[in-house]
């Protein structure tokens, strides 16, 4: 799983039928200093994650298919956890 910060959400009216009912969030992959490391991405969220949260996400398509009980959803990436804290050697990062 990869570390990211939630920076927004997306609303789409016209979309593939299999994407119906899936909440989409915009995340920005970050490093341990909170520095952005790549362009923002859009991923599925089924944990009701709040904007600004530090999260980890899985880069696959199977997770959301299992959650929705549908096959072949054209979507890659799902938030799988919200971070409370990361305990490092010399510091603690709060989520």
């Amino acid at each position, binding site marked *: *799983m990869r570390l990211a910060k939630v920076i927004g959400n997306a609303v789409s009216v016209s979309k593939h039928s299999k994407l119906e009912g899936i909440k989409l969030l915009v995340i920005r992959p970050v490093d*341990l200093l909170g520095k952005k490391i790549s362009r923002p991405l859009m991923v599925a969220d089924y944990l009701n*994650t709040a904007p600004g949260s530090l999260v*980890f996400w899985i*880069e696959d398509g199977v997770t959301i298919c299992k959650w929705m009980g549908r096959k072949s959803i054209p979507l890659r990436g799902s938030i799988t*956890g919200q*971070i409370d804290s*990361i305990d490092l050697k010399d510091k603690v990062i709060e*989520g």
Partner: protein
Amino acid sequence: MKLVKIMGSVTSTIKDDTLKGFKLLMVQTVGTDLDHAGEYFIAADTIGLGEGELALIVTGSTAKHTETTRGKNIDAAIVAKVDKVNLEK
């Protein structure tokens, strides 16, 4: 597989149900000099390691190929502790 150094542990209360019971560790890929730092991953620990140790992780669907991670929503798993790396000059 990727050679990584364990940076610390991750605490998460709200998470996917299939991740419950797993120790999640923050790891960073390293080069053969064991120092050159690269990408970060949050990996599920299948063997019981701690901060500062060297390990091997598997990523992608291969991460589901251990007894404990099978069927779980995991795409990075720690599968070995690295004691020593021998290189030819």
